[in-house]
C-alpha cells in the first residue's frame, strides 16, 4: 500500500498542480510561496506571539487595526525560519513582538500531530541582517512591540535605541504623558490598560530618540518610558511596550496609536482612524 503521508498520488498531483505537489511533499516547500508585493499593495510582515503572549488575539487585533488601509496585506510569519531576507525584501513594514525564546508553540504543516516539533530560533544573525538592511538601506518601517526589547541581542537593543528593563507582576497600567505634537500621539489623552506587563527602557540616545508616552503601573507606581521612535538610515523604528495580553490591543486609544505608528514608520501620511472595536 502506498504511503499517503509522504507520496501524493499521481491523480492528486495532477489535480492540484505543481504547487500542490510541492506543498504535499515537504513543509519547506512553503518557502516557494513567499508572498511578493503586488502593485499598489502595502505589504506588512508580522512576527508576534509565543507561549507568554497570545498569538491568536495579537493577530486578530493587528489585522483589525491595519485592515482599514486600502490594499494593506498583513502576512503573519508562523515559523521563524520563514522570516527571510526574501520575505522582507519588498515589505513596507515589519511588526515584531517576540522575546528571545524559540517559536512556541512550534509551527507544523501537519493537521494532526502527536508530538510538537521543536520551535525555530528567532533573532538569528540572518534575521538581524535582513531586518537591519531593509530598515537602514531600503526604508522599511519597524514596529518593535512589547517583548521585542528582550530579544537577548544587543544588536537589536542598539538598533531600536534602548536598554531594556524588565516588567514586574502583571497589573493595570495607565498610559500617560503622551507627546502633544508628535503625529503618533497628538490629541490622544491619558488612557488605561486593564492588564499588562509594564516593561521599561532606558533611551540610549535622547538626542535622536523621541519619547512618545510614559506609563504608570498601578500597583508598583513605577513611572516608565513606554513608547519612543527614531530614524535609522532610510528607515524608521517605533517602540511600543504595551501588548502582553489582548487587553492592550482592544483599547481604542492604543489601536489608534498602533495605526498611526505603522504609518509614521512607513513614512506615510496618517489616514483618519476608525476604532474597529473589540
Amino acid at each position, binding site marked *: 500500500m502506498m504511503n499517503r503521508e509522504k507520496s501524493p498520488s499521481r491523480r492528486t498531483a495532477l489535480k492540484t498542480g505543481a504547487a500542490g505537489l510541492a506543498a504535499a511533499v515537504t513543509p519547506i516547500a512553503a518557502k516557494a510561496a513567499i508572498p511578493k508585493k503586488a502593485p499598489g499593495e502595502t505589504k506588512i510582515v508580522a512576527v508576534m506571539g509565543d507561549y*507568554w503572549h497570545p498569538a491568536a488575539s495579537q493577530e486578530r487585533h493587528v489585522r483589525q487595526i491595519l485592515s482599514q488601509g486600502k490594499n494593506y496585506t498583513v502576512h503573519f510569519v508562523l515559523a521563524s525560519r520563514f522570516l527571510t531576507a526574501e520575505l522582507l525584501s519588498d515589505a513596507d513594514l515589519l511588526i515584531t513582538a517576540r522575546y528571545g525564546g524559540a517559536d512556541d508553540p512550534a509551527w507544523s504543516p501537519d493537521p494532526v500531530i502527536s508530538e510538537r516539533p521543536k520551535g525555530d530560533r528567532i533573532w538569528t544573525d540572518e534575521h538581524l541582517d535582513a531586518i537591519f538592511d531593509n530598515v537602514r538601506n531600503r526604508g522599511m518601517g519597524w514596529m518593535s512591540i512589547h517583548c521585542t526589547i528582550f530579544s*537577548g541581542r544587543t544588536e537589536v537593543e542598539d538598533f531600536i535605541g534602548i536598554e*531594556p*528593563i*524588565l516588567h*514586574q*507582576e502583571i497589573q493595570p497600567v495607565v498610559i500617560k504623558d503622551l507627546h502633544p505634537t508628535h503625529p503618533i500621539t497628538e490629541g490622544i489623552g491619558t488612557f488605561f490598560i486593564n492588564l499588562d506587563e509594564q516593561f*521599561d527602557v*532606558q533611551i540610549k540616545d535622547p538626542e535622536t530618540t523621541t519619547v512618545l508616552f510614559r506609563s504608570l503601573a498601578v500597583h*508598583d507606581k*513605577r513611572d516608565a518610558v513606554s513608547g519612543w521612535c527614531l530614524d535609522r538610515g532610510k528607515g524608521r523604528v517605533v517602540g511600543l511596550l504595551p501588548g502582553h495580553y489582548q487587553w492592550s490591543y482592544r483599547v481604542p486609544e492604543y489601536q489608534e496609536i498602533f495605526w498611526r505608528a505603522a504609518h509614521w514608520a512607513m513614512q506615510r501620511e496618517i489616514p483618519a482612524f476608525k476604532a474597529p472595536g473589540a
Partner: protein
Amino acid sequence: MKHHKLTLLLLAIFLTGAFIIPTNLLADEAVKIAFEENAKRIDLVTGRELPSYTAAERGSIRFHRGRLDDPEAFVTFFHDGIRKSGTDQLFSMEKVQPRFAIWRLRYKRGNKNTPRIHDLAVSFIPITSDTKETARRAYVLLSDMTLIEWGDKE
C-alpha cells in the same frame, strides 16, 4: 658564618614573599564592589559604620532575604515568578532603579536581565584597600550598594 647569613636573608625574603604574594593574589582575585555614594554603610550585626570597601574575597558574597543567619549563595528575584541565580553564574549585578530594587544581572554566558531583587541584605568578607588583607564578614543592606562584579573568573 657568611653562608648562614645568606640563608637567613633568603629565608627572610621567602617569608616576606609568602605573605605578600597571597595578599596580592587576594586583591587580584577579589570581587569588585561599590557602595552608594551617600550610603550609611552600617554593619547590620555590629551597628558600626564600615569603610567604603571596594573589594570582597572571591566566594564570600552571600545574600539574605530575611535572616542574617541564613545566607544564600544565590540572588533571588522576580521574573515570570520567583527565580534564583547562583553567584557562580553571575558576571555582575548593578543597581538600575533603586526605588523598585531593580538591578541589572549580567551572566557569565553573556545574557542579562533587569528584575526586582528580593534579597534585602548582602554579606561578604571585605578586603581592605590599604593592606589588602581580609576583615571580618560585613553585613549591609543591599540597597546600600550599587555594584557587585564577579567578572569572568570561576
